[in-house]
């Protein structure tokens, strides 16, 4: 067994991860702010009115500035209407719909990000959330479309299967790393593709999961009503119990990482696998366990996707959640409250898309904002340089407050 490779890789993730994890809330907020600023620039420079008025900028600078302001204001106003409160809505029910949509989109993001975050804290980089979602969703779909069970039990079984499926798929990664020293990043990337292939095969084959009277494209049936996650706020809103699952996940994650001995050992292995091994901890088994638990959180996202659906599902059921989860975990500093807030923000980006589309702004702008936010998060020196922040040794008041509230013992 090549312990040296493993040490090298783990310590590598560690050293750089430390600063990112130790970032605290202040830099996260600054990064989000900067991300919105850059997003605004993209809006302005792709705005027709602005591009026309810039041609006679010297003559009438007010036009250009005015249209720039309008572009930004319209864009972010649309994002607000689409994701938080639609003040233009005809009735109160519709006015509050955006925030429920945000919560609905945030659910799977938060859940999957918790999985990625947990792996980060153990010194592992789980790029395999997408594969784990697919694998969990595969078996959940099997239960929800091919098995008949009574009300209640059907949903619980489907839920457990989603979690266990994703956890098992994650555990394989941990097992391969533990047994062979293979780097989990490569393993998870390969396993994402393998899961996609398997799921597509299942959704394509009539004897397996293909929809009852489907054509040639791979697609499953809608989950049976008994296995669907019920709506949370009545029939007016599509928000379902998946979000509650995510919140339960956040609390569980906090308990595991901050209170439990298992989380303590996870963090120990993440910080120093050699010392952990010397202290009698089976590091290899911890990798397997951590990846399984990481996968279990991702499994909550799988349940969200597979059981929150009301129509047939296609092989891209994971959407971009797998990779978005990495960005959410990074922005949230891999802490429970951080992931929750970051997940809500990115959920809002998704929810806001239709409203932005409606005013002729490509909703993909949120992808740009999202990309820059994590760029700033990933590059602490960059943000420090922009805001002339002190070097990281001196923790800010906010960071201290943050840490004091949410973690014990000061160590990350």
């Amino acid at each position, binding site marked *: 067994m090549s312990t*040296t490779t493993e040490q090298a890789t783990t310590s590598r993730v560690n050293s750089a991860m*430390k600063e990112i994890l130790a970032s605290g809330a202040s830099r996260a907020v600054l990064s989000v702010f900067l991300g919105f600023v850059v997003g605004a620039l993209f809006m302005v420079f792709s705005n027709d009115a602005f591009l026309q008025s810039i041609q006679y900028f010297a003559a009438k600078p007010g036009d250009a500035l005015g249209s720039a302001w309008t572009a930004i204001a319209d864009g972010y106003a649309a994002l607000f209407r689409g994701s938080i409160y639609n003040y233009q809505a005809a009735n109160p029910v519709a006015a509050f719909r955006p925030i429920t949509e945000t919560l609905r989109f945030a659910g799977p993001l938060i859940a999957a990000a918790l999985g990625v975050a947990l792996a980060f804290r153990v010194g592992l980089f789980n790029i395999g959330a997408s594969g784990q979602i697919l694998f969990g969703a595969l078996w959940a779909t099997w239960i929800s479309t091919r098995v008949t069970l009574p009300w209640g039990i059907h949903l619980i079984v489907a839920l457990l299967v989603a979690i266990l499926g994703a956890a098992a798929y994650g555990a394989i990664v941990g097992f391969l790393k533990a047994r062979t020293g293979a780097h989990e990043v490569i393993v998870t990337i390969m396993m994402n593709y393998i899961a996609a292939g398997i799921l597509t095969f299942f959704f394509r084959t009539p004897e397996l999961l293909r929809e009852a009277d489907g054509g040639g494209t791979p697609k499953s049936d809608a989950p049976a009503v008994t296995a669907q996650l019920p709506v949370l706020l009545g029939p007016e809103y599509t928000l379902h119990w998946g979000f509650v699952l995510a919140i339960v996940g956040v609390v569980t994650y906090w308990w595991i990482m901050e*209170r*439990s*001995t*298992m989380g*303590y*050992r996870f*963090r*120990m292995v993440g*910080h*120093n696998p*050699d*010392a*952990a*091994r*010397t*202290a*009698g*901890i*089976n590091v290899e088994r911890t990798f397997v366990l951590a990846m399984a638990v990481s996968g279990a959180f991702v499994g909550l996202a799988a349940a969200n996707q597979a059981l929150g659906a009301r129509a047939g599902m296609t092989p891209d059921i994971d959407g971009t959640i797998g990779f978005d989860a990495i960005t959410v975990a990074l922005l949230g500093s891999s802490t429970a409250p951080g992931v929750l807030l970051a997940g809500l923000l990115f959920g809002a980006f998704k929810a806001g898309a239709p409203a932005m589309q409606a005013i002729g702004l490509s909703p993909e702008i949120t992808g740009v904002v999202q990309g820059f936010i994590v760029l700033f998060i990933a590059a602490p020196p960059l943000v420090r340089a922009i805001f002339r922040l002190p070097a990281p040794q001196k923790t800010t008041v906010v960071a201290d407050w943050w840490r004091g509230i949410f973690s*014990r*013992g*000061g*160590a*990350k």
Partner: protein
Amino acid sequence: MKLELRGITKRFGSLVANDHIDLVVNSGEIHSLLGENGAGKSTLMNVLYGLYQADEGEILLDGTVQHFKGPGDAMAAGIGMVHQHFMLIPVFTVAENVVLGNEPTGPLGTLNLDEARKRVREISDRFGFDIDPDALVEDLPVGAQQRVEIIKALARDAKVLVLDEPTAVLTPQETDELMSIMRGLAKSGTSIVFITHKLREVQAVADRITVIRLGAVVGEAKPSESAETLASMMVGRAVDLAVTKHKPKKGNIGLSVTNLTVVGDRHNKVVDDVSFEVHAGEVLAIAGVQGNGQTELAEALVGLRIPSSGTIHLGELDITHSSVREVIDAGVGYIPEDRSKDGLVGDFTIAENVMINRSYGPPFANGLQVDFASRDRITDQLIKDYDVRTPSRETLAKKLSGGNQQKVVVARELSRDLNLLIASQPTRGVDVGSIEFIHERIVATRDAGKPVVIISTELDEVTALADRIAVMFRGRIVGIVDATASRETLGRMMAGATA
């Protein structure tokens, strides 16, 4: 070439690693730089070699001031360095390593490896090194790798050769060979800076000695000076390494190891058919030159390495194939040789470090949860009992000094109910005050009727603590002698002679 350092000062943050150091090395002279671990010797040499830039002071070669922006400049000026950790690329051949950075090339920048081989053979023949230019470095034994390093420096026309702790990994014979190489080089006009903390070697080979302590020059000395004088210069006060201890009250056999063999990472027998016994209330020291299987033996004893044959019994209990956790639960305390790598989690607080090997149950765990109250109470008590100098129990372990870190490790291990203590290099890189404290604690453990195994490469420590001494050489125990054995006897055994 005459080398002169004037007022070299190097700071790392608030730490002053070198404080206005002056040093003169004459042409063809072997000048020894003597100092304890952490005295600032290596920092000084890295400044000289251009790896670090000095904050103050200047470097002169034959009277001209030099400005080294990197090792390239230093090399061009005629300075060569053999680092403590070899700077060789394991997957390259000897020839490739020797010419790296100074490659003979043909058209298009193609490598001329024939020329490279020729250079290696030339130097190798001149000094009788016997090195195959086409061998992969990773396949060579340590002594040969060191000779490759010397060839590398000479191939660059080094006029000043710096050897940084070159004997740490060598057997006494290899050390002797190295010394005759050094003398030969000096005779041919090369100036040599020989960095070490080993008094005997200094006395054997140096022309002049400069002693540094805590980053500053303490003074110059002649090799004819007595070892005691040199030692007291090194540590700053008269050294009395002898620990006061009473005659051992031997009890039953606490640890017995029979025919233990451990196969290493490269399929070689790193521990070869080793047998010994340790009684309760006795300290057995395992001495030997670093890298002769002591580390692997210790790791096998605590379950970190799986023996390929032989048995380990803790009293009546067979722990040959026990996991680390089982060994810990059986009451084996272990102080690993590299505390920052294996002994502590630097990013954990002291409180968190105190429970690293007992997180599964009381007093540190309460069901599935950490018992924070109990943990904090125990930690505070240990900080007090073991005199750990720290602002609070919430201080990160990496922020502590080496001595205080080691006290945390010792406190953690000794505060358990032990049936055996294994301490590997227990005072390496620890300040003198802490050394005394730790030694006292180890002896107290012995006096409490526990079997103790000390593994140390420092003969002084071995003779101070041990009741009996086992000497390891190439994975074997060449003999077990009483603690009263002479240094000469021990030295011969460390070179492989049987007792």
